[in-house]
């Protein structure tokens, strides 16, 4: 199903090949503006308990900090 649908979508998207774009620069963002900076100051991060509460598996050792747990990666 996906193969057929994606094929149809790509065939439709192929219309863009008809457009002459020689010498046209690409646009990544519609409104040309520089990203805003903010002062480089330390601010409170998200509460660790609130963040870890959403993790499928986590650990909060007594020694401090917290971890997201994943299946064993290194044998």
């Amino acid at each position, binding site marked *: 199903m996906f193969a057929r649908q994606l094929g149809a979508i*790509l065939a439709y*998207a192929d219309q863009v090949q008809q457009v002459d774009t020689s010498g046209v*620069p690409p646009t990544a963002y519609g409104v040309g*503006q520089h990203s805003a900076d*903010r002062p480089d100051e330390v601010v409170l991060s998200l509460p660790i308990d609130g963040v870890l509460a*959403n993790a499928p598996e986590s650990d909060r050792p007594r020694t401090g900090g917290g971890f997201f747990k994943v299946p*064993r990666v290194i044998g």
Partner: protein
Amino acid sequence: MNRPATLAETRDAVISGARSAVEVCRDVLARIEAADPSLHAFHTVTADRALARAAEIDRNRDAFRSAPLAGVPVGLKDNICTNGVRTTASSRILESFVPPYDATVVTRLHAAGAILVGKTNCDEFAMGSSTENSAYGPSRNPWALDRIPGGSSGGSAVAVSAGMTPLSLGSETGGSIRQPAAMCGVFGLKPTYGRVSRYGLLAFGSSLDQIGPVTRTARDAAIALGVVAGADPADSTASRQPVPDYASALNGDTRGLRIGVPSRLLETGVNADILRAVRTAIEVLRARGATVVDIELPHAKYAIPVYYLVATAEASSNLARYDGVRYGLRDRQGELDAMYSGTREKGFGAEVKRRIMLGTYVLSAGYYDSYYLKAQQVRTLILRDYAQAFEQVDVVAMPTSPTPPFKIGERVSDPLQMYLADIFTVSANLAGIPAVSVPCGFTGEGLPIGLQLTGQAFDEATLLRTADAYERDTEWWKQAPPIATR
């Protein structure tokens, strides 16, 4: 009054003491309880929290005397993070996700006196034009329960249309506020890219996404935009351009306004009733002193393919974060790789998978130049079309949607047909410019029609002034579906 109260009316009643915030909130919760089982606008209703906040506003009435949204109940699209309130993006993968923080727009609404009453249904991760891609079932159009409300912010539009809340926030990547607003007969605004902070909005297409209001009137949208717009240290794409007083720009004056109509673009594929209603709406503005000019947008016909190449590429990158590690669903079988793929297989719906695959494909080494880069170049030409148009005109007018809302289930098996629903809306997202949809009539079958007005970057004021002027001469905005007043 046989229509639901506007945002401004609701707020004024709370500030004057004619109604308490608690009374307003109770009414809204009762309306949701009565109407939502047949409409499914909401995923989550925060009744207790809302009533507690309303009581707080009533107790501190003096502190909210000049609050722009004092006591105004609001529904938020369920892809906007709310501290302590489940935020699913209508996806199984985030079924039990409870954000530990508020999106910036939520913080700003709260400070302005608004009361969060619930989280609204949408297409999964805002990918869709009908809410049929919601993992929790579609919303229904209040004007015809067997039809789609539009999407992706369908629940937000249904909530306002059915008189459940006077204000909702939605989000747009390719028309997801304007299109459902048009299909539900309410007002929708997509602000300029960067006008509103996206901190706390679950990302879909980062060069396109914007948050905006759904309301009953242009004035209400002006008030809401004034609250949520502005720079934000938590979002580097939020612009530092000063936020004007949008509501004070609504002076009813459209003399000398130049309206461009891309007639050639509208020659084919537009429903006859919609075309007639939009032409009549433009005549209303002409009668108010506007001049109407025919314009060309030669590359607008490529907007859909460009959009689906760019947006899917960005989505494939943004959605990589849903991998079963830090939040959301995890498939617990097997090793790490199997966990990733099992989680995505079980957690994402079909449309999200399609877009991730498409986006990954168009970004892959062999196809990057011919699809992604090419699309970005055509995007430049679409931008130039608008830049050229705005040398001659102040706003561009056309229908919001080429068709009225279709029947639920009619297009689900044909994603490409579904994409074509966005043909008149995606250009504004690609160009980063603001646009509104204002109710301008009904089809012969009684289905709502929206007039779309597009303007120059950061010139929301002109769009809102034009739409407000139009509302002064028409009654369409006062129409409400039977379910809203029952």
